């Protein structure tokens, strides 16, 4: 942007040149243009101020957005608000009971006290039903007083619902955040499969697919906490998931810009063809069944230095067996 001061000065200088008047007594051209010069100077000043203000506003907006994203992705354990969770239990209960006809089995397998890492398979795209059903079940079973945190994708926390989710105890997925929560004695829920698993095609609905991610094992070992596997079925029937769209994520550079390895394609309400699922969708009222498996103490079961590959195979194997059992009980898609 040109310097407004310079322009105004230039206009004043031009006008100033006319002050001496013309030799014939008639106002010279420069005299006649003098008011224009003054006006131009004023316009330039205003323009400069507007430009300055624009720069300031843009700076503020960017700064605010940056601060908001930074805050959304930080992990302040105090953001979890038990009273807020309690007041919103009825909404979660209504959705869970009436829409998903959810059934949660063996919540008693979660140790009564102390830190614990709940490891779940992720289902249902960006409107994952277990994200509603499981925290509801945990909160009604153990009380909202027991600290419970969930790790979620950055994009979820920077979305408009991010501030609400933070009050539920949702934090940006990071090893550091999970460690902090576990160190405070809380229960933490992670979905190692993340966006890869949650957007798997509907015909792979009965498959546990963590894509080889073993971070949860490292986390449990570093904090010396038990793992409680949690298996969900039904979420992949809330829409017809066609493809993860990994190729689309690469093509649109969403993998680099938004940390999205997938850009899923599905048939879902109300969009019919839903690409990306960034705005979510209306999930079909598929019956959701969640089974909480017995707690696993890794060092007790695998020795003082467990092999992560062996633990990974064991945990995913257990979860796959449980999922197969739940799938065998299911007679019809959606209806359950």
């Amino acid at each position, binding site marked *: 942007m040109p310097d407004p001061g310079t322009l105004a000065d230039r206009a004043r200088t031009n006008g100033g040149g006319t002050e001496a008047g013309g030799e014939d007594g008639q106002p010279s051209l420069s005299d006649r243009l003098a008011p224009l010069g003054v006006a131009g100077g004023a316009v330039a000043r205003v323009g400069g101020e507007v430009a300055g203000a624009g720069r300031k506003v843009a700076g503020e907006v960017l700064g605010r957005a940056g601060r908001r994203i930074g805050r959304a992705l930080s992990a302040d354990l105090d953001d979890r608000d038990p009273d807020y969770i*309690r007041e919103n239990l009825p909404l979660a209960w209504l959705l869970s009971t009436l829409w998903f006809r959810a059934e949660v089995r063996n919540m008693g397998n979660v140790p009564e006290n102390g830190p614990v890492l709940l490891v779940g398979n992720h289902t249902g795209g960006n409107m994952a039903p277990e994200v509603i059903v499981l925290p509801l079940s945990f909160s009604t079973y153990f*009380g909202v007083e027991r600290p419970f945190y969930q790790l979620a994708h950055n994009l979820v926390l920077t979305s408009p619902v991010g501030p609400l989710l933070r009050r539920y105890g949702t934090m940006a997925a990071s090893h550091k955040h999970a460690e902090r929560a576990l160190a405070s004695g809380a229960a933490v829920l992670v979905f190692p499969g993340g966006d890869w698993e949650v957007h798997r095609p509907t015909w792979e609905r009965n498959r546990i697919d963590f894509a080889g991610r073993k971070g949860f094992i490292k986390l449990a070992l570093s904090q010396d906490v038990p793992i409680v596997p949690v298996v969900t079925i039904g979420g992949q029937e809330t829409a017809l998931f066609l493809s993860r769209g990994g190729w689309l994520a690469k093509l649109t550079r969403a993998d680099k810009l938004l940390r999205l390895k997938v850009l899923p394609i599905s048939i879902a309400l109300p969009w019919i063809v839903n690409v990306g699922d960034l705005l979510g969708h209306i999930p079909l009222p598929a019956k959701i069944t969640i089974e909480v498996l017995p707690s696993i103490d890794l060092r007790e079961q695998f020795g003082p230095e467990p092999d992560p590959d062996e633990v990974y195979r064991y945990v995913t194997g257990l979860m796959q067996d449980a999922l197969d059992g739940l799938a065998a009980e299911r007679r019809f898609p959606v209806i359950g």
Partner: protein
Amino acid sequence: MRLNESTIVSASPKLIWDYIADPGNTLHYMSGVTRWEVVGEQRSGLGARYRMLIQVGSAEVGGLIEIVEFSEERDMAWSSVTGVDQRGRWRLREAGGGRTRVELRFAYGVAGSGIIGYLAEHVAAPSLRSHLRRSLQQLKRQVEHEKLRRDAAARQASRAATV
């Protein structure tokens, strides 16, 4: 939201009271209750605390409750300490002819949950009412069975004494 169910049991208030005041029996007759554990040293009476859960819709709901009224053979009331707000009351009154009117009251809700909470309370009501009815039926059956067993034992004992 408050629910209220009652029944007539062919037994004395004392027999019913002894049955309901013992927390060890609760899971045998309370329908939908999945957990009823004594918390602390005191098993029964005023101030006794229990951790309880009841299946309502898709969730097991409950928390820590405390006995806040314990008037022998008449009233026993509890109130929640943690978890979803709830109050309950057993009310026993003689109905004549060796029978007792047993009333079970249950009030619940989530303070501050607004219209959604109001809606959820009403949606949950049929299921909870059904649990209360079934609980009373099961209590009646078990207590009357116990009375028959005791009467039979007493008859046998008197017969044995006369022989």
